[in-house]
């Protein structure tokens, strides 16, 4: 079986081509020790299967970012048989840079010119034969949208895999050439065990690349390292520029030489930039961006759960219609389906612990996992659409200034918005952040954003304690949201400090031309991710919900009512904490129990509270607690922020691959929410509520 490493710039159309070639992602994981995703797919050729390894989108193989290091390490040490390099036919002057860089490392390569269908429309003409002559490896023009050139690309790959290998490319580095030759001599006879020509290693030493310096020193090449350092300084002195800049400029000069012969740009009369300009205008840009993002996700969530349309309908007094809407949404249909199976089983089975395990435990867990699936699938689909069409990057650019204040970049708009519906896909969306620290920051901060389930909780509190005054209810609502979003921003800032980054992330964001993406390919990509979510996270969520079921239906003396279960016992031991809010006795116990039960899903907080007090109506149950308004507000804030639900915790762990980060995020959320709700209580009771 052969392996092909796929490398290309961000926005070069890599995932689209990858999906088009393999049809299915065979394997998704993270590269070891990072949150950078590693995808593999299989290309079936006559006789042999070829595994395509999708390397992260990078601008070069310099090792500046985590992504670049991952890509470079794989090229230098991986078990690939050929490299497929992607060049954007809309921007060959920039994207050829990476191709040149990669081809200096190996001639076992094929270059694919992507977006071939769009190039002519945009006035870019690339002479494929000239490019092939200049690069010395097969060059194939392809379009993932129309499928043009894919067969030819596969044939070219087969040829290279069968041994049709070219020589590594030689770029003229001008002033650096004598130094390169000298270091190359020093390196002669040294075996570093990496897949790179000596010339490339010499160049890297002259650039002062720390990873390579370490590698060469470990192999006994101290003299080469020392000589390279001397030469580096000598060149910097005599030429007035450092070798790093010289190598980049020389490579771009090489690219410009090729482009002069192989690329022609024509002026296109049609101005496609009108919408793009609109996005970039000072006031309307951010408004348009927020409107598009909100509309997209409101649609997704309405189809899935009825939210936010159901809340609106209820607010104008159409609660009957709101209920009808909810029952016809995807998650309504799924839970309705599982409810009817459950009641059918309950009617047919004797009321034994085994039956409870089957109906409440197993079936409940399965329903929980499946009810997330359509939501995640559609959230991913919208995300892919926004990203691929170019709308997302434009929106991110226009919102950047706002998000900088929370130590985030404009791209944090997606996860934040998705989180208002559900935290689980929001944690997954953190991967759109351009840098590692920001990704981890978002994962820690996202759980504070009140999801739909917690909105329902807030509404119940409002109708139980603030119903008589709409103004007060609105104020309570606003302060709960402000507290939660404040915690989101504060967590992000604190996490950024803790991760060692001092400045807010600066924006360097490519804005691909706005265009209509291929829906078919978007669907394939999203469906693949959703399936992998089901496999990776589903099992854990299912298992944990079984554990919570066990803790709420068993006590020390066997099967028990909720009030006597292990969870209730634990609730009792946690009850003293509630003294912070001046809650004691059975009130404190029932609140602590509800908080514990709410770990499976925040939807269950109210139900558990009601079950504990033997009441059917959650709002009645809340009223039975007899809280003061200050207590009610503080408790609402606490329930909104206290701890991510099981599914979110699993998502954080799966996405970050770090148990430490997951534990820290959970511990921090407990600590921060307790502190903030206590402050809310103190302030509200001082104000006389």
């Amino acid at each position, binding site marked *: 079986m052969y392996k092909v490493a796929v490398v290309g710039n961000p926005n070069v159309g890599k995932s689209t081509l990858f999906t088009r070639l393999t049809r299915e992602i065979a394997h998704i994981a993270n590269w070891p020790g990072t949150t950078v995703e590693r995808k593999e797919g299989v290309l079936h050729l006559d006789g042999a299967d070829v595994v395509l390894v999708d390397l992260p989108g990078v*601008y*070069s193989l*310099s090792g*500046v*970012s985590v992504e670049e290091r991952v890509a470079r390490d794989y090229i230098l040490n991986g078990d690939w048989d050929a490299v497929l390099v992607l060049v954007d036919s*809309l*921007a*060959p*002057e*920039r994207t050829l*840079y990476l191709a040149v860089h990669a081809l200096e490392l190996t001639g076992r390569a094929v270059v694919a010119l992507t977006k071939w269908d769009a190039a002519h429309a945009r006035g*870019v003409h690339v002479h494929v034969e000239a490019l092939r002559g200049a690069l010395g490896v097969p060059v194939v023009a392809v379009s993932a949208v129309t499928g043009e050139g894919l067969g030819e690309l596969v044939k070219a790959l087969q040829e290279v895999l069968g041994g049709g290998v070219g020589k590594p490319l030689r770029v003229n580095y001008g002033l650096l050439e004598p130094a390169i030759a000298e270091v190359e001599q020093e390196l002669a006879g040294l075996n570093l065990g990496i897949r790179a020509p000596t010339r490339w290693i010499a160049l890297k030493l002259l650039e002062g690349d720390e990873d390579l310096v370490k590698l060469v020193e470990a192999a006994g090449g101290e003299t080469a390292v020392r000589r390279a350092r001397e030469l580096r300084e000598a060149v910097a002195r005599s030429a007035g520029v450092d070798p*790093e*800049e010289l190598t*980049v*400029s020389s490579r*771009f*000069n090489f690219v410009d030489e090729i482009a002069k012969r192989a690329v022609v*740009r024509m002026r296109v009369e049609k101005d496609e*930039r009108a919408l*793009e*300009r609109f996005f*970039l*205008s*000072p*006031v309307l*840009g951010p408004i348009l961006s927020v409107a598009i993002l909100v509309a997209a996700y409101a649609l997704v969530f309405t189809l899935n759960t009825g939210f936010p349309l159901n809340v609106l309908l209820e607010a104008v007094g159409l609660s009957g219609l709101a209920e009808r809407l909810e029952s016809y949404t995807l998650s309504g249909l799924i839970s309705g389906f599982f409810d009817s199976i459950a009641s059918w089983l309950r009617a047919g089975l004797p009321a034994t612990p085994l039956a409870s395990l089957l109906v409440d435990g197993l079936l409940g867990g399965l329903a929980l996992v499946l009810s997330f699936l359509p939501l995640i699938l559609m959230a991913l689909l919208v995300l892919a659409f926004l990203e691929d069409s170019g709308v997302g*990057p434009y929106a991110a*650019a*226009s919102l*950047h*200034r706002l998000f*900088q204040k929370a130590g985030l970049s*404009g791209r944090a708009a997606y996860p934040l918005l998705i989180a208002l519906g559900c935290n689980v896909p929001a944690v997954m969306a953190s991967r759109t952040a351009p840098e590692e620290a920001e990704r981890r920051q978002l994962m820690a901060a996202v759980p504070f954003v009140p999801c739909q389930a917690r909105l329902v909780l807030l509404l119940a509190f409002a109708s139980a304690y603030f119903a008589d005054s709409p103004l007060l209810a609105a104020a309570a609502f606003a302060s709960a949201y402000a507290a939660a979003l404040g915690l989101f921003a504060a967590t992000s800032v604190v996490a950024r400090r803790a991760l060692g980054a001092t400045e807010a992330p*600066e*924006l*360097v*964001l*490519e*804005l*691909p*031309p706005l265009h209509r993406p291929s829906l078919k390919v978007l669907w394939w990509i999203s469906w693949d991710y959703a399936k992998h979510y089901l496999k990776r996270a589903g099992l854990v969520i299912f298992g944990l919900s079984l554990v919570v079921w066990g803790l709420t239906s068993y006590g020390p003396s066997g099967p028990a009512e909720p009030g006597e279960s292990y969870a209730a016992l634990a609730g009792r031991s946690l009850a003293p904490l509630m003294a912070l809010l001046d809650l004691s006795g059975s009130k404190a116990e029932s609140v602590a129990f509800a908080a514990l039960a709410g770990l499976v899903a925040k939807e269950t907080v109210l139900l558990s509270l009601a079950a504990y007090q033997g009441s059917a109506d959650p709002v009645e149950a809340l009223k039975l607690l007899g809280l003061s308004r200050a207590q009610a507000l503080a408790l609402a804030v606490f329930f909104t922020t206290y701890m991510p639900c099981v599914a979110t915790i699993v998502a954080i762990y799966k996405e970050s691959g770090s148990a430490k980060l997951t534990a820290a995020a959970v511990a921090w959320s407990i600590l921060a929410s307790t502190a903030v709700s206590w402050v809310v209580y103190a302030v509200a009771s001082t104000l006389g509520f």
Partner: protein
Amino acid sequence: MDVTLANVPEGGRVVVVNVTGGAGLRRRLLEMGFAPGSEVEVVANKWGPVVVKVRGVTVALGRGMAAKIQVKPVGGGSG
């Protein structure tokens, strides 16, 4: 005074002279196409990020980033 991308008006066309800043960031900008000699067109520069076109690609740069790229007018002298 050095002219940087941050203070080039919309529609301006300039050539990169030098990129300053920390090693990693500098290298990233160079390799994204802001190498000395590359031509840059400023698409938007009013509020928020500076949006430019370089080597056939549109890029949004935070203002701090844009201030690290020193430029001169197209066809202008050495400084």
